[in-house]
């Protein structure tokens, strides 16, 4: 297999902020590669550099064998892009959106018509092709955008948070569609997401990104193996501002034979309750013992649950915080809520 994407020591800086900080990886042809991280981690900046939408500061990046800076036009012809924001034209019909984009790629008339008909059929929008996109639901619009990204038969498809804002049913439809296209069109897929289940289901390999750096890169299975214990007991405790009691109980728990590791975080809220993720081989057996120890220490338990480990836990394992923590949104003070997209996340 040849490499569809090669990235070496890639850096993108905005002033003193490094949105992408010396990232290196490669993606094989036909692979589905995921970039997983919270908002603000640098995923969108990375995808924008690779698709030629913003210029890199340092390092090298090759897509389909072409340098993303020096051979941007070749890169654009080889790739399809589905942006995070919905970017189909609302005042055009589904057919018109696809037709106009096919002409941007100079797809000849006959091939264009056949391709549009096929794609509309595959995404289940053939009967709504003549309707204005303004009348489509979010899920329909997202399917149309995926079709638009594939209109010129690209070798590589970039998707930036493809299911963000969609309801669970629409998300599942998009996942099935991506799997189908990958199979039928021998596509290489590069996607960013902050949904663990999405990355787990679709990706062959996942790069976990935080603060512009790749902190782990492996298959979903191998990522999960990194975490000791197959079960996780989540305990939510009333916040301990003194810090002493909670640190003592964590140290005590880690001495228990069935507990591998205890991670404390605030569940994605800055001043939220203390959440303990207790990694264990047998969660069901551990729960009564853990409750007894916590109550003996006078800790107030707000909630307790048992679950199988997921990529969310992998992320917490590596970063010590939840992936749901929101990044800040930049706003122009001059004209109100404008100019945020340039910065990406």
């Amino acid at each position, binding site marked *: 297999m040849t490499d569809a994407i090669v990235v070496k020591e890639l850096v993108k800086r905005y002033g003193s902020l490094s949105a992408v900080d010396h990232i290196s990886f490669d993606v094989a042809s036909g692979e589905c590669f995921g970039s997983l991280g919270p908002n603000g981690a640098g995923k969108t900046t990375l995808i924008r550099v690779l698709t030629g939408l913003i210029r890199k500061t340092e390092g090298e990046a090759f897509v389909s064998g072409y340098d993303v800076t020096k051979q941007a036009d070749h890169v654009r012809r080889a790739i399809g892009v589905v942006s995070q924001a919905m970017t189909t034209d609302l005042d055009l019909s589904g057919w018109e959106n696809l037709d*106009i984009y096919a002409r941007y790629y100079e797809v000849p008339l006959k091939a264009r018509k056949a391709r549009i008909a096929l794609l509309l059929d595959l995404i289940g929008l053939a009967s709504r092709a003549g309707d204005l996109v303004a009348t489509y639901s979010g899920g329909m619009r997202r399917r149309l955008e995926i079709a638009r990204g594939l209109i010129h038969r690209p070798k590589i498809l970039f998707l930036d948070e493809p299911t963000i804002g969609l309801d669970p049913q629409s998300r599942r439809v998009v996942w099935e569609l991506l799997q189908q296209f990958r199979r039928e069109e021998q596509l290489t897929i590069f996607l960013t997401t902050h949904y663990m289940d999405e990355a787990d289901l679709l990706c062959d390999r996942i790069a976990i990104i935080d603060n512009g750096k790749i902190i782990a890169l492996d298959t979903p299975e191998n990522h999960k193996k990194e975490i000791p214990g197959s079960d996780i007991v989540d305990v939510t405790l009333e916040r301990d501002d003194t810090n002493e009691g909670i640190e003592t109980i964590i140290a005590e728990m880690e001495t228990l034979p069935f507990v591998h590791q205890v991670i404390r975080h605030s569940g994605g809220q800055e001043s939220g309750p203390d959440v303990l993720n207790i990694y264990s081989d047998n969660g069901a057996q551990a729960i009564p013992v853990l409750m007894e120890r916590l109550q003996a220490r006078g800790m107030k338990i707000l909630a307790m649950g048992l679950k199988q480990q997921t990529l969310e836990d992998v992320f917490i394992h590596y970063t010590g915080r939840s992936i749901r923590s929101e990044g800040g949104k930049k706003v122009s003070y001059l004209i109100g809520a404008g100019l945020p997209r340039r910065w990406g996340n």
Partner: protein
Amino acid sequence: MMRVWAFVERDLRKFIRNPLAMLSTILLPIVYLLIIGNAFQGTLKHLPLAVVDQDHGPYAKRMSDRLRSIEAGPNTIRVIFEHDPAFAEAEVRSGKLKGALMIPPHFSRDILRGTGPQLGLLLDNTDAVAASALNQAVSGALAFLEVDSVPIRADLKAPRVLPLELYRRIDYDASIVPGAVIMSIFMGAMITGAFNLVMDRYLGVHESYLSTPLTRRDIVLGIMISGVLVTTLVGLFVLGAGIWLTGLPVAGGATSFLAVLLVIVLTALGLLGMMCIFLARVDHPRIVGLFGGFLNIILFFPSGAVYPIESFPPWLRSFTRYNPETYAVHALKSILFKGAQWDAIQGDLIFLGSFTLIMFLLSTGMYRRTL
């Protein structure tokens, strides 16, 4: 060119599906034409003037008659007779009257004796234009007060001015039709062309087409072609409406129409290119609104569309030399009012053509192909 035409089609389809935008582009210049054209009409009319006759002599009566004939003829003034000078003065001060003419006692006697007869004219000089017009009207009435009758035959020995009008008479409302057309082109250039790019940036739509093989030249050329098609149609429609509403007698035939079309197309392209430069990096429609209002004032009013350029102060006259709308208005006035041929508008066309070319090259250079 497939890419450029695809971009053109996208913009045109979007524009056609927003009829409100097209309607406002057409309506504003027409409303402007109707309001400004009818409000100003070139000369002032119906200025209320009180006449307080304290003399009641023959020359006071003659003065009143002269003023009445001005009221009946050119309509510059509306005469109101008052008895109380204090009341008349109060009415002027309150703004109900623009002026009050005081004919003092013994006015007729002083004329007959030749002992320096005087009239008092109280003027609301906060309205300088109206005050000047009233002063002129009263001075005109006073000029031949001592002449008992106006001879039917002119005195052949006296020197005279014979005004020869070179062209057909154009009323003021008709005279601002070229200005209304240029305004419609400006409005069209504001809401098409670069505005679509601003909206694309605002909605994030540009992110998708910037990742396609579209080049900077494709994008700028595409928006300029779609913009010029819409703007030319709007300009022609406003011209037709202006001719119909004002009864403007249009000089020339098919050649004039082609010349008008050329001026409209070149003006539209130049303004679209200029908008592309100014809005090349704007990503909020609010800025376009603020910027458009400002630009309309600094380009339109010094263009000669509503007031002769020659009467501007020197600094403003200098600016008009670089204002594309000056050349567009001049060319349209020459063609429509004078039936001018190519050589008369050659300079205007050369300026507009050069301006368009420079704007296109600069806007292509300034457009950023990245986010």
